[in-house]
């Protein structure tokens, strides 16, 4: 209530408020910084990677970390740092694109259900309930088997299961807002429906959406890694962190660094993104902060 009534008067104060709160949260800032660094490194990988992606040195073989190869090399003598950087590009791309797919479907679905209400809402949310009851992990495995393991499908498949929660959040938010006094007041002042949507509904829905988006990215990345680990996700010659971990497990007794480094990279990334999401939730969505 407080946050929403603030934003009706001063558009920017909610965001300024949120930023001030976020700035105090060191862990969230660390997550934010890590995300920016990660994106920068991923974008620049072709130029800053120390070695070529396919560059082998069969004479060298697997070596532990050294000055030439900071994170060691794999059994083909390929530089691990380079491979992790290239793998990160794919992992992050899956994270962002699949989340975007989930975001678009979820927001549209939830907003329509929340606005229209009545029978349409009941039907739409029943569909969400049904999909929730499906074993989605199993469903993705099934999709990957049936349509072959291609990366585009992976985006769609993951996005298609991750939109459900988004739809529920958006719908709940829209429904709650519609009943609030300040919306009624806006109606009685003669504002048009579109003006109300733009001025009041969207800004007030944005907070939880941003928070949930931030939290969806790591769970999508985890899902991708999970599938790649099983051999059902990203296929060679492309690489992702999940695939690198999969290779690392095969030789972990002899060459543990091949497991440790991609594993630590993945975990740290998920860690950073989750902290950022939690921080954003505390800052943007005070009511949900307790969960």
């Amino acid at each position: 209530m407080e946050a929403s009534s603030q934003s009706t008067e001063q558009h920017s104060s909610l965001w300024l408020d949120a930023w001030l709160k976020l700035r105090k949260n060191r862990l969230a800032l660390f997550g934010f910084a890590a995300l920016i660094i990660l994106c920068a490194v991923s974008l620049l990988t072709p130029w800053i990677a120390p070695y070529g992606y396919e560059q082998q040195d069969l004479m060298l073989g697997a070596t532990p970390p050294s000055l030439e190869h900071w994170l060691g090399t794999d059994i083909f003598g390929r530089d691990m740092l380079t491979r992790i950087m290239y793998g990160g590009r794919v992992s992050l791309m899956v994270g962002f694109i699949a989340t975007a797919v989930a975001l678009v479907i979820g927001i549209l679905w939830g907003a329509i259900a929340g606005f229209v209400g009545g029978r349409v809402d009941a039907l739409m949310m029943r569909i969400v309930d049904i999909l929730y009851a499906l074993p989605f992990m199993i469903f993705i495995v099934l999709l990957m088997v049936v349509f072959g393991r291609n990366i585009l499908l992976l985006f769609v498949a993951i996005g298609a299961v991750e939109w459900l929660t988004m739809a529920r959040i958006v719908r709940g938010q829209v429904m709650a807002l519609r009943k609030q006094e300040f919306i009624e007041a806006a109606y009685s002042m003669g504002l048009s429906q579109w003006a109300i949507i733009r001025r009041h509904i969207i800004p007030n829905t944005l907070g939880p959406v941003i928070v949930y988006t931030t939290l969806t990215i790591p769970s999508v990345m985890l899902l991708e890694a999970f599938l790649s680990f099983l051999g059902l996700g990203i296929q060679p010659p492309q690489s992702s962190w999940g695939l690198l971990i999969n290779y690392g497990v095969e030789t972990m007794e002899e060459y543990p660094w091949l497991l440790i480094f991609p594993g630590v990279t993945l975990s740290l990334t998920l860690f950073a993104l989750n902290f950022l999401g939690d921080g954003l939730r505390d800052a943007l969505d005070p009511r949900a902060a307790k969960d």
Partner: protein
Amino acid sequence: MIRFAINRLLQAIPVLLVVISVTFLLVHSAPGGPFSADKAVPPEVARALEAQYQLDQPLWQQYISYLGDVITGDFGPSFKYPGRTVNELIAAGFPVTAELALYAMLVALVIGIGAGVVAAMRPNTMQDYIPMSAAMLGICMPSFLLGPILVLIFGIHLEWVPISGWGDIPGDKILPAITLGTGYAAYIARLSRGGMLEVLSQDYIRTARAKGLSESLIITKHALRGGLIPVVAFLGPAFAGLLGGSFVVETIFQIPGLGRFYVASAFNRDYTMILGMTIFFATLIILFNLLSDLLALQLNPKLRQQARGSH
């Protein structure tokens, strides 16, 4: 309550029908049949095989007869293991997976609730930060990473526990249960912390404090019941997740459970197996969601009234 349960059970029927139909269509629209990998099969043998598995009939006929079989609980023969039925394979694998999921759930509940309650007792102190950071670490450490690392440390270097198998050597169930349970322990810790914080700020807890009850009595007698409702509601989805997670854990530890069968049949394009297991999993998950909803209802009188009002 009973009406609610029956209602929910009835709602599960269309859900299951959707699952069966979608899975059936998906699997049958897949390129490449189960026998197309074996190049050596002469055409007449292939035709005989197709006739044996009714693949030569039109799709709708296959669908109807499959639906009929499934309703009577018959998932048909396996494509990959000739002479064995999907029912047999499920019967062999399910007890193993169920046992694994049960142990993992125990690990998750004990550690998760313990950590969450401890953290909620003194929020924003070290007693809160340490278990909650550990929980975050648990969430960010996927099972396919945690498992191998545990194997490396406790199995290979320290040689405390066996590194694979299920029920062959004493102690070989420890690592799989911990690997599968840790992530859920972390979620449960966060949920129970949130739930406990909410409850501990309520008036009736203040009343209990004012009466001079000891803190441990307040927690166990008054706060836990309400504080754990989010955890109970999470049990259904968690169980679904445990089944999915068992894919990886069973693969890592070479456990002959359903998860490993499922991944194997996915690779082998064992159509009937994929179909049967998907339907089996879906049924289980729906049942568990129902159970956890009923349990949450039992714990929360407010929800009970709502359920009565809406049905």
